[in-house]
């Protein structure tokens, strides 16, 4: 059963990041819910960041002319890879929340523009990870409008499991279906397609790994100007195998529809679910490998358990 919540933190309770899903049907409902959220923020002197598709941004702009506390951001700047979104939101919120000013975000994911099942799965995981990423950010809250007009209850249920709160009828209610457990239940990775290339690698083989991937990617139609970026990403992931994954790993690469994939398997375990999703500082010693992979590839899938080791899949889109 859902329990109504006020938008304010009850007395004596530690403030925490508020992450609300807002299922709506039609433009009127979209505006009602988002404008209510925005006006509440304006009344409280908070800054608002709006990252929604262009048509929805136009609707809001018409209602919010000359409102200095509201900032519209181009979601495309973060790129299509959901693995970059946490860093993008961190940067936007840091800019707008200067001086400790509370910030609210409105972020609508373009779920229906997901390129494939893997992309959709990573979009969902990213929504869930936002709760982890901003768990200690009491000054931030985020409303995620979701266009439910197609009445796809299964899709809505999948997305809602990533949000601890649901925004409905003008108030926030606790989402009993939220996946609060430590271990997110991932979609299983599909088997690779034939024909696939395979290469076992260990120390001294980074050049061979790059060579193999570059050749296969070029044959698959990955544009030439993207091959150097892929070379950096595969170097980082293979290096992680050699340094942290038992000293060796197995590379497999294949093409599926309009995507070139390369998969790295090793015996290591990545305990930090946010690894590679936050921008490194110059002083930071390590932790740049997965970050670079997220920034340079179109999608990165990571599956890691203590028992089965780590699998990282790098995706590069192939122009059709």
């Amino acid at each position: 059963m859902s329990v109504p919540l006020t938008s304010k933190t009850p007395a004596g309770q530690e403030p925490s990041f508020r992450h609300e899903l807002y299922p709506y049907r039609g433009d009127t409902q979209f505006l009602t819910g988002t404008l209510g959220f925005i006006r509440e923020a304006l009344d409280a002197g908070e800054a608002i960041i709006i990252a929604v598709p262009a048509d929805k941004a136009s609707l809001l702009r018409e209602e919010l002319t000359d409102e200095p506390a509201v900032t519209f951001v181009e979601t495309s700047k973060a790129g299509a890879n959901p693995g970059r979104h946490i860093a993008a939101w961190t940067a936007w919120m840091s800019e707008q929340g200067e001086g400790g000013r509370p910030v609210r975000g409105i972020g609508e994911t373009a779920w229906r523009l997901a390129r494939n099942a893997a992309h959709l799965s990573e979009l969902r995981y990213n929504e869930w990870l936002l709760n982890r990423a901003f768990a200690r950010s009491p000054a931030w809250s985020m409303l995620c409008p979701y266009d439910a007009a197609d009445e796809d209850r299964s899709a809505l249920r999948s997305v809602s499991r990533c949000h601890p709160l649901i925004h409905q009828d003008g108030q926030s209610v606790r989402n009993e279906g939220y996946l609060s457990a430590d271990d997110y239940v991932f979609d299983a990775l599909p088997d690779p397609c034939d024909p696939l290339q395979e290469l076992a690698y260990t120390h001294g083989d980074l050049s061979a790994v790059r060579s193999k991937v570059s050749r296969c990617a070029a044959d698959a139609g990955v544009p030439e100007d993207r091959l150097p970026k892929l070379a950096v990403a595969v170097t980082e992931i293979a290096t992680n195998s050699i340094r942290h994954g038992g000293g060796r790993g197995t590379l497999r690469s294949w093409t599926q529809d309009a995507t070139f994939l390369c998969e790295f398997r090793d015996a290591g375990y990545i305990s930090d679910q946010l690894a590679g999703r936050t921008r490194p500082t110059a002083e930071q010693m390590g932790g740049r490998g997965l970050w670079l992979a997220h920034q340079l590839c179109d999608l990165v899938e990571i599956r890691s358990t203590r028992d089965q080791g780590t699998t990282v899949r790098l995706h590069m889109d192939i122009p059709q």
Partner: protein
Amino acid sequence: MRTARALATLDEVELGDHVCWRRDPAAALLADARAFVADGALYGDKIVVIGGMGETFDIPRDAVPSASVVLDFSEVSDTASVLAAVRREARTALREGFRSVRVLTERGPKAAPDGVEELLDQELKLDQFASESGAIVVCAFRPSQWNEPTLEHVACVHPHEVGTRAERPAFRMFSTGADSWSVDGVIDSEGASAFNAALRAAIAQAPTMTLRFDTLEMIDAAGMRALVDAARRLPSRRIVVEGANETVRLCWELAGYEAADLSVVMGA
């Protein structure tokens, strides 16, 4: 502009080359050395053998041109003494009408300077000498005498190498003018340690050094960290990177170094 390249044999050496020559066994090394010396006479080069660093080049006197010079450092010598002697011979050779000098030296671990960094410093200075003077400098190493990591580090500061091991080392750093060094190839986690050592040796030589990345294909996170670490060890020195490709510059920015307070400037 000097470029890195692999030589199938020593017959392919050109003026200004600084060659890493990994060769076992000693008999084969000696045979090739004799041919190299004989070629020197053919091209009008003065032969300078840095002796006392191994017995390999115990070439019979009648097998080398009469104008050849053997610099016999029977004891371990400091870099400055070795280089001063080589430069002196180069100047003398020019006065005597030779085309250039061919320096042949066998580097043995016993006679090498203490520590990799000092060894790299000596090699970088020999490289500067070759670059500036047009001399040919061939450094012979018997792999059986060296530990592999040290030899890999040393190979990285020779722009030229005899043999077909094109894949290793993945990068080469070499002189391309006063306080200017080019880096060719790929700097990844396997070469980052060697890159760091080479940088530390080079940066100690001048307040500002230019690092040309025109032929650097890529640098990974470990390579960038090696560059930053070298700069931080000598914060009064400045490293200006020029000619970096789009991906290298992008990775530098993504790694968080672009906006950091570093004495490294990354330029196109």
